[in-house]
């Protein structure tokens, strides 16, 4: 796998586009701030949400079993999947049982994580993603670059050209209103013809055995209510104890995600429609392993609002695709190494550790602290890239020997002052790639101190 930094370097080659991406996301972050500041008890809500999740994770087995029992009582069929492969097999099995060949799907990071689309398509099943952003990237054959705004990396000109090729819109048309209308017409046909609808789950309620799905477009509802078969796929960490806890989480979710006071549709599914069938697939896929890591289990509190991405200076300037992970950004960088540490060992370094992610997280995950902890583990396991490893070893030596440290400081001051630019700004000087080195002072602090203070 290419390092995040390598992919990010490719992304930032187009400076104007990088600025545009950065500003688009910062705009969403600003909207989040405005919405959050409108709620006097915001910080209290974050603390409550965090504690409710702590409680739930500490009784997860009991809540999952209570949830299942209640769902079965409601006439819902519940399945359990240990990993992605089992999840895909189960979903395919349900579809086969109902002879379903045309599927509409609403946004679900879990099915993305499991590679469900590819799996079903290989079995000859048609899957249409129905969230506009998801449909765009599906037609473009790309993965999502953001968990809430999957096509945030694309310009309207690119969407216009794509829709011209795939949906026969006017050549050169770029008006979002026009393009959205074209998608609406195209998707409506898919909804009416679908044999089954698959959705993700935002919250699952142990007390009632129901699932809650939040969208702005209404696509999940168009799918589930028109198709005779509805399937909801959820990770084990989606559970909340009671309906009353939805009060806390629905207040936080949309405000954190897009700055809206609520998602437009907050749908509560408990039973199949008349003559229909409802299935819920509960998936582990590495989550119990993460639960077993005290330093990282907090990441399971995530409600997938994307606020940490919108605020992250690295994400905003490197784009979601540079993470090469289903969930990118700060939260992705602590979740994904838990799944495959070797493959994703670069991600915890895609951060300045500024802590902005932890500040905006609605469930108070200590994201930047976990990033730092992953770095320790990656170094201990010997997974650092050679250049980083050697410079760390060197830095360790220098910092632990006062004599070396003094000599290094002196030579650095001399070098930056007297050497010609081309000798300083070499490919080895990664700091100097896009930045000027600071002007070196004439003397070190120690030298200054000796001269001015030590005499007294």
């Amino acid at each position, binding site marked *: 796998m290419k390092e995040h930094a390598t992919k990010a370097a490719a992304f930032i080659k187009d400076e104007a586009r990088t600025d545009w991406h950065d500003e688009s996301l910062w705009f969403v972050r600003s909207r989040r701030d405005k919405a959050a500041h409108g709620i*006097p*008890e915001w910080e*209290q809500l974050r603390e*409550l949400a965090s*504690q*409710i999740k702590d*409680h739930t*994770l*500490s*009784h*997860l*087995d009991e809540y*999952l*079993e209570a949830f299942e029992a209640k769902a079965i009582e*409601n006439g819902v069929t519940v399945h359990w999947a240990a990993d992605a492969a089992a999840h895909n097999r189960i979903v395919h099995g349900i579809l086969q049982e109902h002879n379903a060949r045309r599927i509409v799907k609403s946004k679900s990071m879990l099915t993305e994580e499991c590679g469900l689309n590819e799996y079903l398509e290989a079995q000859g099943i048609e899957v249409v993603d129905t969230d*506009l952003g998801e449909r*765009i990237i599906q037609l473009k054959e790309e993965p999502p670059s953001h968990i809430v705004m*999957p096509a945030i990396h694309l310009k*309207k000109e690119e969407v216009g050209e794509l829709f011209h090729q795939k949906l026969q819109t006017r050549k050169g048309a770029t008006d979002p*209103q026009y393009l*959205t209308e074209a998608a*609406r017409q195209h998707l*409506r046909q898919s*909804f*009416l013809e679908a044999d089954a609808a698959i959705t993700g789950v935002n919250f699952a309620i142990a007390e*009632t*055995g*129901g699932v809650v799905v939040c969208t*702005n*477009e*209404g*696509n999940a*509802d*168009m799918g589930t*209510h*028109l198709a005779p078969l509805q399937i909801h796929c959820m990770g084990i960490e989606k559970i909340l*104890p009671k*309906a*009353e806890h*939805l*009060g*806390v989480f629905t*207040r936080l979710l949309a405000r954190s995600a*897009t700055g*809206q*006071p*609520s*998602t*437009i549709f907050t*749908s*509560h*599914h*408990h*039973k199949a*429609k008349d003559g229909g069938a409802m299935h819920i697939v509960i998936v*582990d896929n590495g989550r*119990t*392993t993460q*639960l077993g890591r*005290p330093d990282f289990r907090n990441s399971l509190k995530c409600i997938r609002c994307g606020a940490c991405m919108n605020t992250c200076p690295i994400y905003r300037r490197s784009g979601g695709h540079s993470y090469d992970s289903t969930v990118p950004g700060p939260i992705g960088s602590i979740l994904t190494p838990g799944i495959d540490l070797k493959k994703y060992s670069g991600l915890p370094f895609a951060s300045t550790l500024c802590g902005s992610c932890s500040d905006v997280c609605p469930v108070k995950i200590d994201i930047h602290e976990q990033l730092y902890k992953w770095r320790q583990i990656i170094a201990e396991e010997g997974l650092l890239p050679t250049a980083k490893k050697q410079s760390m070893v060197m830095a360790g030596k220098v910092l632990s020997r006062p004599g070396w440290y003094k000599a290094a400081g002196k030579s650095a001051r001399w070098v930056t002052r007297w050497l010609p630019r081309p000798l300083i700004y070499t490919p080895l000087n990664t700091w100097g790639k896009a930045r000027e080195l600071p002007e070196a002072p004439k003397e070190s602090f120690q030298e200054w101190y000796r001269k001015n203070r030590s005499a007294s």
Partner: protein
Amino acid sequence: MSKAHIIKAIQAVRPDPCPLPVVPDFEAGDRPVREVFGSVAAQSGSRVVRAEDFVGLATAVRTIYHKEIKIATPLRAIQSDIDLQQASPADLNGIDVAVLPAQLGVAENGAVWVTEADCVHRVLPFITQHLVLVLPEDRIVRNMHEAYAQIKIDDTGFGVFIAGPSKTADIEQSLVIGAQGARSLTIILT
């Protein structure tokens, strides 16, 4: 056997028990809920009107939209242009305006609670081109905590908070009203 496997895996590693916090009753603002509801709903793109400003609900709907629209409604006060009990999905797809009773409004986010019992067909509030919800004014609560305290989410097989017309900003963050669901939402307060 996956279930036993997952439950066992959780039991092997689950954290020490943490207490479940009590959600307190948050302080109310000074503004009346009706006023907050109206302004927040308007910001989300909903139209809020009072029934008393019109001569009957039917007039209200036909004044706000057009006279020649195809209306679907279970309400007795308005003539439905389609027999909802008999309607197929294709019939529902041809509806211009669905007029549905609603149970509860939430001031802090302009959301309105609608259940399966109110809409006859679950898909109706979504598939219709435009949606009208009829809400008794005295059924507006302050926030989502009060809302969940008043409703029972599993009273029917399906219930939804609707907080505006269907929308998307998936193309360059430009807000477009009318994504996959209703292109407009009118809330008539009675």
